[in-house]
């Protein structure tokens, strides 16, 4: 196997037009029809390698190309897309977008942004992504699986070991003069480990994320996932109590991603955010600093500009516990009488931008996790939470999730727990934050950078 790009399209020697030309052409075609138009194109090469038992079990190499067109006519918008970027397909895209604009109802805030004054200069691509051979990428996953299995004899199997990478080019153009493109790449390792003892199975996951695959540490990732599964062996419920919980970074990240949705202007303007009227008010203890940083050099969601060409930026959401504001795209910013924060995020070329967090970063004074645990009389170190997204209601902020973890008694981690629920609501949780750990890390699920989060006065429901 070789690391060369797979020639999935075109005759030998045939060059496809640059993506920027394709989006420029689409805007030109639509612009002639008397509408505001914006074209967004993407082209990518991605690879997904799954190993099992030291061998490649699945290998997928994928090419993806497509364009999407957004048009505005008298405040009505329409969207159409195509995976085919031939001239004929582009003209169909224009016709469909216009037809779709014919059924949406006008909105005086609808429209495209003007070109940004400046965009951040980001290094979000590493050539190592394309140059490392496929064999080496396979070897990374094999090493990670081996490390997990070697970590403890009770690790029965590694159900999932993945190496994934994505090398993408994005281009945008609009009839208002937005024009730009960038290349972005990342890779990650993921493990899902099963450990077994006395007929009881426990699971553990771990991620490693990088722009350059040479920086991934498969041994560390494998050992971490195995350690997380092993730590839960022998788990059983505990009696219900009210106490302090330490959410480890993986769990804290899933809670923060629910919070992030509630902090979008879309949720606020539609009456779906419990933070709607709280701008300028204390919503958390003064320890809490929450930032949306679309230009973070390490963030998986980082880009020089967002899905409608607005420059990425660093937006404080909570500073010293006080709610600073919300996340906006161009539409919600016009409606709210403010400026876009560069949060018009694209899922793909097949849909228009929506307001979403980019990279959520939780910061604050760090306390060693060992010191945090030592100060807890009765609590739980939570290492897994099942149902954060289904069990948490982003509108009301109430949640009740099943958790696994380790009981903390008199300042010591004692025995593992399972079949226990943690219930409460997001506002009281934020007001209960008493410490942040010194173990900050990126969690790719939603792209969150967070340490462990320690919360007081939480209800643990057990047997």
């Amino acid at each position, binding site marked *: *196997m*070789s690391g060369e790009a*797979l*020639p*999935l*399209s*075109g*005759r030998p020697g045939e060059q496809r037009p640059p993506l920027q030309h394709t989006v420029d052409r689409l805007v030109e075609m639509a612009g002639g029809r008397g509408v505001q138009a914006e074209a967004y194109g993407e082209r990518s090469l991605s690879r997904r390698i799954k190993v*099992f038992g030291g*061998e*490649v*079990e*699945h*290998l*997928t*190499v*994928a*090419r*993806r190309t*497509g364009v*999407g067109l957004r048009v505005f006519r008298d405040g009505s*918008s*329409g*969207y159409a*897309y*195509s*995976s*085919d970027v*031939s001239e004929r*397909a582009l003209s169909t*895209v224009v016709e469909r977008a216009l037809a*779709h*604009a*014919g*059924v*949406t*109802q006008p*909105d005086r805030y609808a429209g495209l942004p003007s070109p940004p004054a400046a965009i951040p200069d980001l290094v979000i691509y590493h050539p190592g992504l394309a140059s490392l051979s496929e064999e080496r990428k396979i070897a990374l996953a094999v090493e990670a699986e081996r490390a997990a299995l070697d970590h403890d004899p009770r690790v029965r*199997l590694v*159900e999932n070991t993945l190496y994934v990478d994505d090398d993408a080019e994005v281009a945008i153009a609009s009839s208002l003069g937005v024009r730009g493109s960038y290349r972005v790449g990342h890779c990650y390792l993921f493990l899902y480990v*099963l450990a077994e003892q006395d007929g009881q199975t426990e699971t553990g996951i771990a991620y490693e994320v990088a722009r350059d695959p040479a920086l991934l540490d498969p041994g560390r990732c494998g050992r971490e996932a195995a350690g997380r599964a092993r730590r839960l062996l022998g788990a059983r419920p505990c009696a219900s109590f009210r106490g302090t919980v330490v959410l480890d970074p993986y769990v804290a990240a899933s809670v923060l991603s629910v919070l992030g949705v509630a902090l979008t202007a879309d949720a606020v*303007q539609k*009456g779906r955010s419990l933070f709607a009227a709280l701008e300028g008010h204390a919503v958390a203890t003064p320890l809490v600093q929450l930032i949306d940083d679309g230009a973070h050099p390490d963030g998986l969601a980082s880009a020089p500009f967002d899905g409608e060409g607005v420059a990425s930026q660093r937006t404080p959401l909570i500073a010293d516990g006080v709610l600073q504001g919300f996340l906006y795209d161009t539409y919600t910013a016009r409606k709210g009488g403010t400026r876009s924060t560069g949060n018009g995020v694209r899922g793909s070329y*097949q849909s*228009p931008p929506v307001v979403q967090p980019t990279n959520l970063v939780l910061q604050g004074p760090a306390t060693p996790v060992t010191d945090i645990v030592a100060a807890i009389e009765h609590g739980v170190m939570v290492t897994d939470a*099942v*149902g954060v*997204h*289904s*069990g948490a*209601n982003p*509108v*009301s902020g109430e949640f*009740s999730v*099943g958790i696994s973890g380790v009981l903390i008694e008199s300042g010591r981690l004692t025995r593992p727990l*399972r*079949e226990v*629920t943690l*219930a409460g609501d997001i506002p009281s949780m934020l007001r209960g934050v008493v410490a942040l750990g010194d173990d900050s890390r990126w969690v790719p699920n939603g792209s969150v950078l967070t340490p462990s989060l320690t919360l007081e006065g939480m209800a643990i*429901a057990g047997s």
Partner: protein
Amino acid sequence: MMSFAEIEVELLHAVLRRALLRGGDFAEVYLEDRDALAIRLDDGRVDQALGGREAGFGVRLVDGSRTFYSHGDEVREQTLFAAADAVARAAAAHARTEVVDLGPVRGDVGKHPVRVPPETVDVRRKAALLRAGDEAARRVSSSIVQVSATYAETRQRVLVANSRGERVRDDRTRLRFVVSVVARRDGVIQTGYEALGASAGFEIIDERGAADIAVAAANKAVTMLDARPAPAGAMPVVLANGFGGVLFHEACGHGLEADTVAKGASVYAGKLGQRIAAPGVDAFDDGLLRNGWGSAAFDDEGTPTQRTQVIADGILCSFLYDRLEANKAGVRSTGNGRRQSFRHVPLPRMTTTYIAGGQATAEEIIAATPYGFYAKSLAGGQVEPASGAFVFGVAEGYLIEHGRVTAPLRGATLIGSGIEILNRIDMIAGDLEVKSGMCGKEGQGVPVGTGQATLRVSEMTVGGTAA
């Protein structure tokens, strides 16, 4: 780009031959052309109409337990050959498999009849459904503060050809109408949701039908405004028909998918022929369910779909297989090889799964329950197939006292494991109902039906927020 009609059998044959050039057990070409339209109403306005066309192919090579896949979105002779060469190079296998001459193309277009192809209906009539839904939901109560609704249609044409000489064509039209509402009163916010989905055409919905769906969603949200915090603890739980089926799907169905079983990562592994549920429990996966949202004439490997009984009177009688897992297990595919699109390899996936109806009535079940929890609709949840442990949010739940449904309860979750609840089913009503949903697995979303008759689980843990 080529249309499917232009793809000649000789080309498909040549691609399969090239994929197997350096060995392998099985090669397949999957071609897909998908046209989609989605119109959304939000905040009182039809604010989005989007649609487009996505066409592409995937070439799959299977060698023992290894799979190599290459896909792209430009369907041309050169790109198909390049993908075949890529998987052949990656495989470096030793087995030699001859490509059987491709047979006549099979298709079964009448299986899930479409009377009014959605693409023949003016887009303005579709937008009108959304406005009808919005108005109907807002008429339910002045506490309805938000309504969002989506109309979506897809037409997916697929062609599958493989080295066994099979060649299958399927043409799938799916339509879905979804409403969710937010109600607010005295600082309390609650949500409600209802959906209709089918493998059918525009005949399944009109403005009145759209209004009915919206009213159902609005009623849920309004009812839950008066809810008090749910109690926590173990108690009898009555799962209502319809939406309750999502629990069986998540907590049991995923553990029956043969890939999970083969890895020993399912609690049901090695239990074929054994009791996994209480006597009287029958469960099915039915890809043939007429016009079902999760139905198709063929799966995405070209295997005809079927109705598979997975539990018979409490005994586990079949897993759900795609071609690969069926081969490993020495059985036939049950027609459960499904994929989200040409960008994905097929996996064993459910179609429409349900626990079949029994002898009781829903009223009798409630009347026979002195104290318990009535889960009218579930919000969705998560499960670990390895342990079968699940957690489910309850969207609409009530207290049962003295054999009667009384106070609405909010913030409840259901916690347990699949085998545990299957064994504790002690009453089943005859009111089977199937709901439409989207199921995610390994990053692939596919339409599924989930269903259930009203049933009682003698004891389940309810996670509530009441002090």
